[in-house]
């Protein structure tokens, strides 16, 4: 499975697995280089996904079966001033 098609959870689990294998040091240098490269790609992928903050948090689905273009913004209480929307 190529790295790009992984879900965030799969990518994170795979990354954890690779780090663990590298830390245990049970694999040869060549394999560890391969694992390291894959790990770096997964790390970048995870970082990118974590950067993608949704601009609109909510979509209201319409009774006619379509997804509404009219998003509802949550009310902002005093603790919400720093929220990213």
């Amino acid at each position, binding site marked *: 499975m190529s790295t790009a098609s992984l879900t965030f959870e799969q990518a994170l689990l795979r990354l954890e697995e690779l780090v663990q294998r590298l830390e245990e040091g049970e694999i040869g*240098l060549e394999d560890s280089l391969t694992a390291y490269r894959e790990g*770096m790609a997964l*790390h970048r992928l995870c970082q990118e996904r974590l950067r993608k903050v949704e601009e609109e948090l*909510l979509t209201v689905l319409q009774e006619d079966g379509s997804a509404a273009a009219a998003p509802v913004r949550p009310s902002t209480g005093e603790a*919400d001033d720093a929220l990213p*929307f």
Partner: protein
Amino acid sequence: MSPTRPDTASIDQVWTLSQLATEFSARLEQEWPPLWVRGEISGYSHHAASGHRYFTLKDARAQFTAVFWRSRADQSSVQPANGLQVEALVRLVFYGPGGKLQLDVQRLRAVGRGDLMQALLDLKEKLTAEGLFLPERKRPLPAYPFRLGLLTALGGAALQDMLKILARRWPLAHAYLLPVPVQGPGAGPALADALRRLAAWPGLDLDLILLGRGGGSFEDLHGFNDEGLVRAIAACPIPVISAVGHEVDTTLSDFVADLRAPTPSAAAELAVPDVAQVRELVEDLGRRLAGSMHARVQGSARHLHALRTHRALARPEQRLRQANQRLDELDSRLRVLMARPMAGRRESLDLLRRRLQVALQRLQGEAAQRVVDWPRRLELPVRRRLREGDAESRARLAELGRAMRRTLDDGARRVEELGTRLERLETGRLRQRMLRMGFLLARDGEGKALATLSGLPAGTRLQLEFNGGEAEAELLRIKEHAS
């Protein structure tokens, strides 16, 4: 001055509300002595600080608020509970600050469960028997849900609560709300229908569904006890978190859901991870990844360095010098021995020769083994780790191996020479001594020493060596001793 009673007072007299409340309370007490009433308990709350119990007593057409003071409630064998059908001995009192008539409960006795509650308990028993609430039916929730389905009322507090938490904890997610009435007649079937549609909504591909509403009375939450909704949750292909009302409220939806959250806010908290923590986790993994690789390379470099600077490998010439020195020592001792009188010398010579051979063999064996071993010990790990290897160290290694072998060969030659010399020396000295004792050494015409004259024909020319000279002789006759 206190106003007179209304029936005797003038219509023009103005009362304060407090005066009215006091007067009204007094009349209630006077004209309504304690009496038994029957009704169903709803909206029950147990005030944590004071310990007093508050609830509503109701039947089909009327309701009264009631208070069960702690001092009496704690003594009561029957404790209030929502849906409980009770008979209560009450005093009618007017609660001035709240502006309402209420029942001051003196005693409470049960008369069977309320109809709604009874129906609910029957349903719960039936669904439990079917295994709908078994823990093993519960599906694991996705650790990182990015697409959330919300099933609650548009504009309800529950929606606002959930969105606030989602925005704060996990702003990477997008929520899809299917608005649905969460109370009133038909709420249950409407919720069930909405859940089925939300789960199957084309293109939505949700990770998780949150279902819930804020607090309310037992009746308000009753839609979440609907059998159809419970079955829809059980059959839902997407994991469901149920959050209905407050902590104390539990509905059948909560039982059947994959996770029960006490409140809508808590549902959102439980549904998603904290993005800051996940970012930290990812960064930590990145650091560990780079760190372990760095350590790995450093470890390999250290190992290679250690092999290269290994004592024996680094200075094999020193070991060879030591071996040569040992040979020289043996040589010297040999010479000393040679200079000693003959007596006991043969034994010493034999002993010395054996020791010399043993020492040489050991030296050769060890050194040869090392020459064989060192490249293997060095090269195997190195080759395994670095495909290209270190050309310089390999060349150096090969050169060292060749040098060692050369020196060993030289050593072996020297030992052989010494042995030959020793033999020659020994034979020469022995011969001298024999000649001095009067023995003769006979050689044939070609100068070859003869061990015996037996079988030689008469007339054979011999050269005889004696102490101090040589003589030419001719064999005249041989007389052999019988053996």
